[in-house]
């Protein structure tokens, strides 16, 4: 599903923020990415959702070499990937409903189906009363749940979540993790970057640990 081989990455002409990252995730895997602030967790996820390019090394997604992707192949690939951005990146001018509906609209789904799915999912994350609310009128935790709903609504094969529980209390965090587990059970590969050690230990999934841009704990899957 995801394969990194000696991947290095830098922003512009800056220093390498990721060095010699190698690992392999099978379809259906569930991983936490941990590490201190600034270790490179978000950067690694950006490589996975094709927002950044590696400065060296090889990345494969869905068995495709990422460097060989043509521009017009990107949208279809990205629709297979759901992303919860660390800073949410909700569209401020759209309601919670429309934000969550976006991936389905982009995929050309009919409006009546969209309405049903989106309403259902937003109720599930506890935002039934906030369908028409603009992101700015929502609390941080509510925005985060909208962001998560947007990431999972199209049932992606790969879910990348960057600090998806940073703004919610532990009870909701665990509930959201259950949502991810449900998705994982039906085959979605999940990668969650988080600081929350408690959460990581609450769920018994393997961890990719970054320190200063270097993978310190080799994942169990490495080298397969």
């Amino acid at each position, binding site marked *: 599903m995801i394969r990194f081989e000696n991947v290095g990455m830098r922003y512009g002409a800056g220093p390498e923020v990721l060095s010699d990252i190698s690992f392999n995730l099978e379809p259906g895997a569930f991983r936490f990415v941990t590490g201190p602030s600034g270790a490179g967790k978000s950067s690694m996820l950006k490589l996975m*959702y*094709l*927002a950044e390019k590696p400065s060296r090394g090889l990345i494969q997604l869905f068995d495709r070499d990422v460097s060989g992707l043509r*521009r*017009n192949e*990107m*949208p*279809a*690939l*990205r*629709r297979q*990937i759901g*992303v919860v951005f660390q800073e949410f*990146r909700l*569209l401020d*001018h*759209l309601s919670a409903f*429309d934000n969550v509906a*976006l*991936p389905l*609209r*982009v*995929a050309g789904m009919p409006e009546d189906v969209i309405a049903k799915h989106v309403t259902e999912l937003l109720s599930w994350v506890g935002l039934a009363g906030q369908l028409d609310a603009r992101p700015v009128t929502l609390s941080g935790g509510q925005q985060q749940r909208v962001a998560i709903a*947007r990431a999972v609504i199209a049932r992606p094969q790969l879910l990348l979540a960057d600090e998806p529980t940073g703004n919610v209390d532990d009870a909701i965090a665990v509930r959201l993790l259950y949502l991810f587990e449900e998705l994982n059970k039906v085959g979605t590969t999940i990668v969650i970057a988080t600081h929350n050690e408690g959460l990581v230990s609450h769920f018994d999934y393997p961890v990719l640990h970054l320190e200063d841009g270097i993978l310190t704990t080799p994942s169990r899957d490495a080298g397969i």
Partner: protein
Amino acid sequence: MFSGRLDLPLSSDPATRLLPWIISVMVFLAMLMLAGALVLTGATSSWEKGLSGRYTVQIPPIEGESTVEVDQRIDRAIKILERTPGVSAAKQVPPAEVAISLEPWLGAGTSVVDLPLPHLIDVSLADKPAVNLGQLREQLRLAEKDSVVDDHGAWRRQIKDLIFSLQALAAGIILLIAGCAVSAVVFATRSGIAVHHDVLIVLHLIGATDNYIARQFQRHALRLAFKGGVVGALLVGATLAIFFKGVAELDPMLMPDLRFTLWNWLILSVVPVAVCVIAMRTARATVLRELRRIQ
């Protein structure tokens, strides 16, 4: 086409407020230009057509001759004309009519009889056969040494040249206006892309194709162009209505044939439609080009 949701908050862009006005002015100018060209083309070509089926023969007066002698000379000329193949009718323009047609220039009540005006014969031509003009002139000159056959050829050629230059000028100006409209749409679209850069990135990351994004800009541009087009067209309609009302009150003797046909209105209505299409195509092309630059 007009309905449909925008994922981008384009309607709050500054360019959005400006563009319909710019477009309405462009549409107004282009339609007015076109209307002017159509009216003048219509007037001059009906004038040209009126001249193309006829000759005018001038018989200069001879000092001291009697009216009987004049009539004889004119009759002889008419006989020659009527025998000529291709001529369907020839008759003298009554001196009183000549006087009336000169009235605006000479003032009413002028006695034409006192002026050494040539006698005029109005000749109508048949469609076929074509008159052999050289031969006709020759024959008339044998009878009347100083007669002149005016086929209005030079005049008609000038009118045709005038029509052509008018049309070329109008086409040039309309092209210029279209160029300005295109630039305005390119500018508005580019500024929209710059303002919404972050939203566009998110849309891309969610899996939106360039096409999907371009459709939004395209739809938005169409809405704005439609607004501008309607306003511009209404202004032109009002302007023309006032103009033709004014024309109707003028002396028809002095005015060329200024009319606006249904066909002309149809041609005019192409302008706002064309503006909508141009705005859409331009927005689309601009977005696709700019997006390729983003990633």
